[in-house]
């Protein structure tokens, strides 16, 4: 059996999106910046796409900027607000400890440039507290950035509440919604955000395309210099086939959202219940306030990379926050932030489901994962020490 359970990494391209990609490449091959009819037809198609994406987010078309994906969108939003704030002498940025590296590394860079970076902690449930944000947001703050849903443990953050705080204090607010768009209802007005980053390939569009929502009036600097595309804020000939595919994919995802969420959250809960029976394991993140497709566990006494490799042998594609899968010595910053110590954070497993996930696949994973965990524990000196009482169980 082949089970693709790594949809938070990337999704299969939706057939309708693939069709749109090919048709657009063929029918709208002109450059939207060209004056001739082929170019103008492409420009009209680009406008329709912008309207389509905006409609899915409750935004105005003029507030949508097409980018290469989530990382670029996050970078542009953060740098824009930061450099604009610095001109007014405001150099404090408030974010969270569990952001994606596209946000964290951008903040780190700003920290080296003299910005004060405050990363709010999260509870063991993987959720940041609005009250903690409120304490840190002050008159020197030029940006608050809080992700809508976490990529590793799927927890959904109180973005609308924190956005309301920022709105009241007139502080630019960015949300990295890369994992959320297409997976839960997202409306820029409900979220009170000034910037919102999204990425096409997380909801069935091809890779290499995304968008940044920028509320009218919010500062925006361009990262890429060149032509006047995207109102001069993002140079480079528009990737129209991918943009069209993303528009179709998002439209479909939003239409299917209620049914998708109901179906996939039921599968998620079933998988969580089944895997919870494995001794000395723990679910990462709040059991309910999480993405409908996210299942994340830590298993004591084993290491995540070897778990992934053996699951792959069984046909199960998953992911882990272990250090060995990232090439660094430290396990995932998200798992450490929710209080998992290094020893158990190394033994993490993330399974992310999709609308294509079946009951059979859940049953298959529920059968294979406990077997592989038990096999690896069988050769683990850590597990032996735990069993023999020479080491204390953490989970």
């Amino acid at each position, binding site marked *: 059996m082949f089970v693709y359970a790594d949809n938070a990494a990337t999704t299969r391209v939706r057939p309708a999106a693939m069709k749109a990609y090919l048709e657009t490449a063929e029918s709208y091959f002109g450059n939207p910046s060209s004056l001739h009819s082929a170019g103008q037809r492409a420009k009209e198609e680009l406008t329709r796409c912008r309207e389509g994406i905006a409609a899915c987010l409750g935004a105005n078309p003029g507030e949508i900027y097409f980018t290469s994906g989530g990382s670029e969108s996050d970078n542009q939003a953060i740098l824009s607000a930061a450099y604009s704030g610095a001109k007014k002498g405001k150099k404090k940025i408030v974010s969270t400890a569990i952001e994606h590296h596209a946000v964290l590394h951008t903040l780190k860079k700003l920290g080296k440039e003299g910005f004060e970076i405050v990363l709010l902690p999260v509870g063991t449930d993987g959720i940041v507290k609005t009250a903690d944000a409120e304490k840190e947001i002050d008159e020197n703050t030029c940006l608050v950035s809080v992700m809508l849903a976490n990529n590793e443990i799927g927890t959904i953050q109180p973005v609308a509440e924190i956005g309301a705080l920022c709105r009241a204090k007139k502080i630019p607010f960015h949300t990295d919604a890369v994992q959320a768009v297409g997976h839960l209802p997202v409306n820029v007005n409900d979220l009170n955000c000034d910037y919102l980053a999204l990425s096409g390939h997380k909801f069935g569009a091809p890779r290499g395309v995304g968008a940044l929502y920028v509320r009218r009036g919010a500062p925006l600097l361009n990262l890429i210099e060149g032509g006047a595309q995207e109102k001069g804020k993002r140079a480079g000939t528009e990737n129209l086939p991918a943009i069209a595919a993303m528009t179709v994919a998002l439209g479909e995802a939003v239409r299917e959202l209620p049914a998708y969420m109901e179906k996939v959250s039921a599968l998620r809960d079933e998988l969580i219940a089944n895997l919870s029976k494995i001794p000395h394991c723990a679910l990462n993140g709040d059991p309910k306030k999480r993405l409908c497709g996210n299942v994340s566990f830590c298993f004591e006494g084993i290491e995540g990379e*070897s778990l992934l*490799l053996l699951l792959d042998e069984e046909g199960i594609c998953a992911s882990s926050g272990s250090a060995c899968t990232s090439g660094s010595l430290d396990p995932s910053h998200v798992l450490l932030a929710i209080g998992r110590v*290094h020893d158990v954070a190394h033994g993490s497993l993330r399974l992310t489901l999709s609308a294509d996930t079946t009951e059979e696949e859940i049953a298959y994973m529920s059968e294979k994962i406990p077997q592989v965990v038990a096999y690896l524990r069988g050769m683990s000196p850590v597990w032996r020490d735990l069993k023999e009482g020479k080491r204390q169980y953490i989970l």
Partner: protein
Amino acid sequence: MSLYSEKVMDHFKHPRNVGVIENADGVGEVGNAKCGDIMKIYLKIDGGIISDVKFETFGCGSAIASSSMATELIKGKPLSEALTLTNKAVAEALDGLPAYKMHCSVLAEEAIKAAILDYYTKNNIPYDESLFRETSCAHCEDKPE
């Protein structure tokens, strides 16, 4: 997965010499759970020859494969020869490891040396201290939680 050579995958999926030797003559454990790698080597020694060897490993695919390969390379060998086993030889026998996984082969070398040292110490056998360098994982001990 193309991250690893076929040989690494073979030793990872079908590890040789996994297990424990009860009343082993020498036991060596290196690494720590914080770093994500622990290797434990058990030796049975008869007349200066490694007559049996077993291992237990907590770690990634290359750590398990390195342990497996290292035990194969020393099984049936005199201690003097096992002591000359380098991490490079383990990695080469596996048709190479990714650069950031080379420490797994270092752990295998160190685990074997630690097991031999344990045997020497337990039996009051004099040995050349220069053959036993400090373990590379010492820095992990100081790592904050």
